């Protein structure tokens, strides 16, 4: 027996493979493990889009609200303050106020101001629109991540995919109820608005159309619990949830869960000003376009805190508080792709692919042993080492094992065997030609090497393309194939060569080619 550098590297590779695959194999507490894909462990995969044009709309709306608040503070009289999809329009009753309103408008970024006499028209610049849309996506990712982090599932994945898609992956969702809760939490706009009830006209709300309301600068909103009840409120809100600093679950006097919220200093000031001015009127607390309550304002409310009461369960209130705390979505999100796999299906898939993997593996191993005798065993050692190394590398990188990934491993087994078949056939050929064992082994490897390398590299090219262009599960396939090919070069080529070199003198002494290579003579 003679040690050589090949066998040394091979031994190191085997130790590496076993050491780092132990955490995955035995699911130990510590150490990096292979992640099971959603198709294998069950879970929810969603690709979400953002309706970015809505973000621009709400930006316009908040500019309008700002102007309204500013003019009320400065006692500037405005006429016909209105807004549509892309612009805010109003006119000044007193042209002398132009200077102070202009000073205010200059502070707002990305605004195109058009003046014609006392009429002022505001629109967002193209650049600002793009910025707003980008912000909406960034903010949606951030918000969804915040919400899911507080939801209590292990390692939720929230990531940007491409320019404007959001990938959400929730492993370990076990029940339908849990999935429903998660989806509601993610998609909830959580847009809190405090709005003034239009007390002059609210009595006529049931006979008004949306267009009638719009003509007065009002909108009609439904009650959250009973859609029959309607409110007429001023379209431009007093303030919105952007000024919220905290939201938590509390209980009212009837011990029903409510949500207490706090406003920041600016919000508290606006809120105080408004309530001071509107004693005797009602304030509508609006969440996602529905009126949750409309209490009477009895006095000026300072301090900037308020309460949302509704018909909540404790879980519902908790989820809503999470959503409010994480901030509103600037724009609504919609579903582009959803894949949800129940845990039992995942378990079935693991079982089926394990049967296929083990079955195929055992068949190949037996076949190699029968056909090549000891040479087959050498190949089989390489094959088993290969599996360990694949698992180890995947564990180290925290890669995800998917169902196609399992298929990739099965396929790698086939390809790794191929390398050893090619080598063994070459060695047999050379032995038939009557060369020495040493020369047969060395030339056999040299001759086989070119073909194996070329074949592996071309497959690797295909795998890399698959990785670059594939999504989700397919990426998993490309990963296992790539790792498998690289590992097989180490085990099936280098490793087996090392074993032969180590055993060379034994093989020569035994002169039993039948035992060693499965051939006569």
């Amino acid at each position: 027996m003679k040690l050589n550098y090949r066998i040394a590297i091979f031994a190191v590779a085997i130790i590496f493979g076993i050491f780092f695959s132990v955490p995955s194999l035995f699911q130990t507490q510590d150490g990096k493990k292979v992640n099971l894909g959603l198709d294998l462990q069950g879970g929810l995969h969603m690709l979400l889009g953002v309706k970015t044009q809505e973000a621009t709309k709400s930006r316009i709306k908040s500019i309008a609200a700002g102007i309204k608040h500013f003019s009320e503070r400065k006692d500037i009289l405005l006429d016909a303050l209105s807004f549509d999809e892309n612009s805010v329009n109003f006119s000044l009753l007193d042209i002398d106020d132009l200077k102070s309103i202009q000073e205010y408008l200059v502070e707002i970024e990305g605004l195109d101001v058009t003046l014609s006499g006392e009429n002022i028209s505001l629109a967002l610049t193209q650049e600002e629109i793009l910025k707003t849309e980008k912000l909406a996506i960034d903010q949606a990712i951030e918000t969804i991540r915040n919400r899911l982090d507080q939801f209590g599932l292990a390692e939720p994945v929230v990531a940007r995919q491409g320019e404007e898609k959001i990938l959400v992956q929730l492993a370990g969702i076990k029940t339908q109820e849990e999935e429903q809760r998660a989806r509601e939490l993610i998609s909830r706009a959580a847009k809190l608005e405090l709005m003034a009830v239009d007390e002059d006209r609210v009595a006529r709300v049931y006979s008004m159309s949306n267009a009638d309301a719009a003509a007065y600068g009002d909108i009609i909103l439904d009650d959250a619990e009973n859609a029959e009840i309607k409110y007429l409120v001023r379209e431009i809100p007093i303030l919105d949830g952007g000024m919220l600093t905290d939201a938590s679950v509390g209980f009212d006097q009837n011990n029903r869960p409510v949500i207490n919220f706090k406003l920041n200093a600016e919000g508290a000031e606006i809120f105080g000003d408004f309530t001071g001015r509107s004693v005797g009127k009602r304030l509508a607390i609006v969440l996602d376009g529905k009126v949750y309550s409309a209490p009477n304002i009895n006095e000026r409310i300072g301090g900037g805190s308020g309460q949302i009461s509704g018909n909540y369960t404790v879980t519902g209130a908790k989820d809503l508080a999470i959503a409010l705390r994480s901030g509103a979505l600037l724009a609504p999100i919609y579903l582009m792709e959803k894949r949800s796999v129940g845990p039992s299906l995942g378990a079935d898939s693991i079982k089926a692919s394990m049967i296929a993997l083990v079955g195929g593996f055992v068949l190949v191993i037996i076949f190699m042993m029968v056909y090549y005798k000891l040479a087959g065993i050498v190949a089989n050692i390489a094959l088993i080492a290969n599996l360990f190394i694949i698992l180890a590398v995947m564990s180290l990188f925290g890669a995800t094992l998917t169902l196609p990934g399992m298929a990739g491993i099965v396929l790698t087994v086939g390809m790794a065997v191929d390398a050893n078949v090619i080598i063994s056939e070459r060695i047999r050929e050379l032995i038939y030609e009557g060369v020495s064992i040493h020369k047969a082994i060395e030339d056999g490897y040299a001759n086989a090497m070119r073909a194996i390398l070329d074949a592996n590299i071309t497959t690797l090219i295909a795998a890399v393309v698959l990785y670059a262009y594939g999504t989700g599960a397919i990426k998993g396939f490309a990963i296992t194939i790539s790792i498998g090919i690289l590992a097989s070069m180490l085990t099936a080529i280098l490793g087996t060569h090392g074993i032969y070199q180590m055993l060379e003198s034994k093989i020569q002494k035994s002169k039993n080619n039948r035992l060693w290579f499965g051939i006569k003579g």
Partner: protein
Amino acid sequence: MEFFKYTRTFNFMGRSKLAIILSIVLVLSSFVLLATKGLNYGVDFAGGTIVQIKYDTTAPIDDMREKLKTNPIFEGSSISEFGSSDEVVIRMKTTSGDVTVDIGDITRETLKGTGNYEVRRVDIVGPKVGDELREKGIMSLLLAMVGILIYVAFRFEWRFAVASIFALIHDISIALGAISLVGLDVNLDVLAALLTILGYSLNDTIIVFDRIREGVTNSRNTELSETINESITRTLARTTLTSLTTFFVVFTLFMFGGEIIHAFAFTLLVGVVVGTYSSIFVASPILLWFGFDVKNYHNKLAQKAKREAEKERMRAQYESGVM
């Protein structure tokens, strides 16, 4: 054991005409199938919705149909068995973009009273995503081929590269034809299988080409068809062995892998058979017909060797300071 030891050189190229006729017939009928029957794009590429349901006992499909008719959401949906009689999938062309309203829940509600069941999988692929996946799919097939073409042309010679690409197109076409014939749903997994065929078939072709390259380089025989016959014969043991082991593996996947991997395994099964055949009977004859000139190749090799020798001499001179 040496079942697959071949001592006599087979005249593969003598049979190549027959093989080519067979190939042309197969490829053409695949094209006809693709043009007439077409491919059955699954949700991944066409967009749509899939709900997979497993019952405790045999799924009451007729009952289910009746129930689904009561909800307009399910208009135009189809129900079919999935793998076994107690598991079914409901397919719809429509998708909903609403995050909070779940088709799985709606299905569960609608099917109430049809027995004990569990909704095991809900796949919704919006039209935009479907289009994108299809684009990326075609792109990945083409890119992989171009990458391979460049590599093989660089390592061998352009005629080898073109011949291997022809073999690949041959294999992919026939595999697609077979998929169309049995009416499999074409989803991402089938794409992965096609790319695997690409790799596998190429693997086979390259092993044979490597021998041909070796034969051409080493032997004085300038008759290419003889060299090809010899090379194929010498790799035949390996070809049979590897094809058989791969076939075993894929076959177990096909038999025991379950319904969800069925399309993948079927595609591979076809690919393994066709890929092995094409490396012998498609790629090699094309090499012959493209007029790969052995003498010319020898000359090129000789010139290359001469250049190398010249370089070597220069270096030796330089190192000994004669320059």
